[in-house]
């Protein structure tokens, strides 16, 4: 491989107010290589790439392309220097065709859509994509849209391509296809920067790996010399054992039985396919999977926010008295989901949650708490203060037509005190709190409902290590008090250390449920990519303890 330098970053720093996003980063990219930029969430990968592609401007340092110092002020400038970025969130106009999207913003002498389309097809063929230039974006699948994004960049003659977590939305097969294309582009002499935090992908695709940690560039090493443990160590600094306390589940009994549910999105594609599982009291059930595999839909279906096409969701309320013996009996039962009828007979209070609205679910006395992925877009109202956000769950109480702000105010004070929320006051709009504090407010409110089922989707996403541990502790406490906790996570280490059982979801289907104490990362990784091994049913058998 010739080692001509394509892109060079010198002492790049970027601050967002007090927060240091990138500090003194040096990075060199050669022509004809794939450089993986690896780092945890919040390590400054995306900010760094945004500076290369002209979205942010560095506070310090400079950038050189092909040895020439350049100034990249805007995406336009970046294009000018042959730098193209494929964002995680596609920037496409839905009602346009692929060809029109590609043509957007280009200043050729003449505008001929036909020529653009022909060129799109040509590029696609060259690198082995498949795309219909005349298809409208809104009719396309996620991977097709990504293809359009890549072609858009190539069409503009990009020599340096930046891909921000391109595989997060892809199936394993699609990922493989993408990698094949990327290799072909590399062989064509292009430089490719791929942002990711998935180690196996780094090892599979890249020539070299640059590791970022807390905004700083740790090192760049050749992939051939790397392995997962070396990279992990570089990523997290020293080998960290998470040391999350995990107690033995107590008084386990079935709380929520999901059987054979199907669900499709607005375009009619199946997002959940025959999903069955059981959440038990006093236990944390982890859900692992590639982002967008149906986790959100699953939780929303349980919470009554998503219409399901088929299947049942059944809730078993705890016994009136103490949970103890009565539930012991239940856990003896077989986990065959269609044993529901039998259970119904035994447990007269079993409640069917299918197609109930969140209101109806609550009115049935089901204490279901849900910490959604989208904190400020769903769980909380950003422009309202903490007190009013507390009220979201409780404002209906009582027959009065007017609001009672006293109890929510007490609750807000409680949460601020006990969870150590950093805020000027309880009357600060939550939008202005930091991510960790927002999450504490949300989780605090959900726990304050004294739930019997607590669902949390990516509750530590974007949080620093301390806040994350605060959240883990909260979940553990809930589990110890007999709540059935469902935890959707992305970090496998956390899942393995926190959860009692881990369910893996791949492409809308359950690919396996494993014991958290014995689970191996590799095993989970394999399940996530959609391979359903025979052992999937294994845990059903050995799970009585």
């Amino acid at each position, binding site marked *: 491989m010739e080692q001509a330098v394509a892109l060079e970053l010198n002492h790049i720093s970027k601050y967002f107010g007090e927060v240091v996003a990138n500090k003194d980063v040096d990075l060199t990219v050669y022509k004809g290589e794939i450089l993986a930029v690896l780092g945890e969430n919040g390590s400054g990968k995306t900010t760094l790439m945004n500076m290369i592609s002209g979205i942010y401007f560095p506070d310090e340092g400079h950038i050189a392309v092909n040895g020439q110092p350049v100034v990249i002020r805007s995406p336009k400038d970046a294009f000018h220097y042959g730098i193209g970025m494929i964002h995680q969130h596609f920037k496409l*106009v*839905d009602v346009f065709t692929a060809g*029109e999207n590609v*043509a957007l913003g280009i200043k050729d002498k003449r*505008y001929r859509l036909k020529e653009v389309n022909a060129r799109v097809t040509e590029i696609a063929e060259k690198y082995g994509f498949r795309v219909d230039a005349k298809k409208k974006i809104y009719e396309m699948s996620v991977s097709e849209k990504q293809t359009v994004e890549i072609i858009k960049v190539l069409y503009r003659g990009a020599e340096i391509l930046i891909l921000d977590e391109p595989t997060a939305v892809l199936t394993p097969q699609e990922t493989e296809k993408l990698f094949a294309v990327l290799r072909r582009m590399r062989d064509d002499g292009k430089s490719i920067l791929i942002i990711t935090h998935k180690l196996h992908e780094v090892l599979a695709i890249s020539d070299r790996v640059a590791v970022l940690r807390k905004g700083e560039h740790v090192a760049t090493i050749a992939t051939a010399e790397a392995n997962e443990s070396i990279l992990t160590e570089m990523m997290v600094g020293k080998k960290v054992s998470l040391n999350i306390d995990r107690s033995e589940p107590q008084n386990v009994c079935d709380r929520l039985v999901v059987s054979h549910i199907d669900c499709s999105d607005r375009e009619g594609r199946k997002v959940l396919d025959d999903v069955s599982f059981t959440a038990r009291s006093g236990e944390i059930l982890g859900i692992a999977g590639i982002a967008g595999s149906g986790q959100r839909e699953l939780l929303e279906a349980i919470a009554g926010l998503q219409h399901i096409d088929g299947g049942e969701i059944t809730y078993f309320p705890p016994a009136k008295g103490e949970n103890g013996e009565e539930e012991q009996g239940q856990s003896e039962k077989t986990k065959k989901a269609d044993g529901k009828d039998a259970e119904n007979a035994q447990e007269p209070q079993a409640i069917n949650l299918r197609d109930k609205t969140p209101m109806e679910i609550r009115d049935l006395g089901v204490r279901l708490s849900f910490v959604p992925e989208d904190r400020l877009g769903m769980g909380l109202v950003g422009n309202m203060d903490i007190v009013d956000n507390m009220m979201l769950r409780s404002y209906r109480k009582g027959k009065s037509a007017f609001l009672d702000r006293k109890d929510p105010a007490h609750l807000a004070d409680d949460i601020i005190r006990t969870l150590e929320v950093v805020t000027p006051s309880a009357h600060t709009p939550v939008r202005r709190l930091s991510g960790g504090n927002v999450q504490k407010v949300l989780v605090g409110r959900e726990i304050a409902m004294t739930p019997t089922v607590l669902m949390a989707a990516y509750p530590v996403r974007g949080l620093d290590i301390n806040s994350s541990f605060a959240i883990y502790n909260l979940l553990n406490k809930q589990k110890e008090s007999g709540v059935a906790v469902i935890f959707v996570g992305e970090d496998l280490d956390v899942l393995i250390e926190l959860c009692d059982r881990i369910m893996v979801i791949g492409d809308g289907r359950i690919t396996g449920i494993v014991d958290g104490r014995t689970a191996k990362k590799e095993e989970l990784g394999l399940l996530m990519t959609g391979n359903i091994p025979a052992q999937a049913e294994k845990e059903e058998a050995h799970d009585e303890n």
Partner: protein
Amino acid sequence: MNIISFIASAIRFSTVFLFGSTGETITEKSGHLNLGTPGIMCVGAAFGGWGGMIYVNAAAQINPFLAVFVPLLFTLLGSGLMGLLYSFLTVTLRANQNVTGLMITTFGVGLGKFIKANFGTEFDAAIGKLCGYFRASLPFADKLGWFGELFLSYGILVYLAIAVAIVASVCFSKTRMGLHLRAVGENPATADAAGVNVTGYRYTATIVGSAISGLGGLFYVFDYMGAWDSGLTSTEALGWLAVALVIFTMWKPWLGIFGSILFAALYLLPNYLDVTFAMRDIIKMLPYVVTVIVLVLTSMRKKRENQPPASLGLNYFREER
């Protein structure tokens, strides 16, 4: 009733709507819901009159070309300035589009009346003097029977309106400018990322669109009425119909040519029928009712191509992406 003359007058009258709606469509394609169009049409009419007056006072002998051109220029200038004001408030100062638009309407009607009141009878005289030049039909119009009456009997602005609508349509679908404009109205963040100057397009489209809308007012006063619209009430009402027409034609200027003729026909129909005043009101209501029906049907059918531009009414602020 004479069908030919009815259609001919509908075509003639449709020009008011066509200018208004083509201008508004161009504006809306950029994502600006400019509810100031009625006011802008009033300003257009007043500025046209002002220009005409200046010309009449200055010229010893009236040149047929300048007689049309000077008022036209003034109209473009006046209504374009209103578009600039709107863009400045919504793009640069990020004011709410609905509020700004409505204020432009109030202000525009006021400004139109103010200009007229300032000049008084001189103003009326100028319009009276010049309207003949606006109405001058093509040669042979009266020698070709129904053909002449249907196609050749109109003043220059009628043809200009149709030409503008066709040009706008072609621009939208066939030029890069059109592509960029549509992208700005659909998804400004994407357009911005692709290197399209969102601010520039929004400003330009709004100013050009407003200038074109203003011609509707000019036509109404100089050609259709041949006299000042006292109080500007009709001009304002017609302006709202032009806004309705944009929805009715689903943001397609070429469809606007036919839509405007339909609206004009409905508007004029009562004059050609022997009906009571009450009945006339019902007929006059039809354009609004069909617009509502079109609006409802498109929203029910959810066909993406017929929806309003996705970011219509929303201001774009780059940092908020």
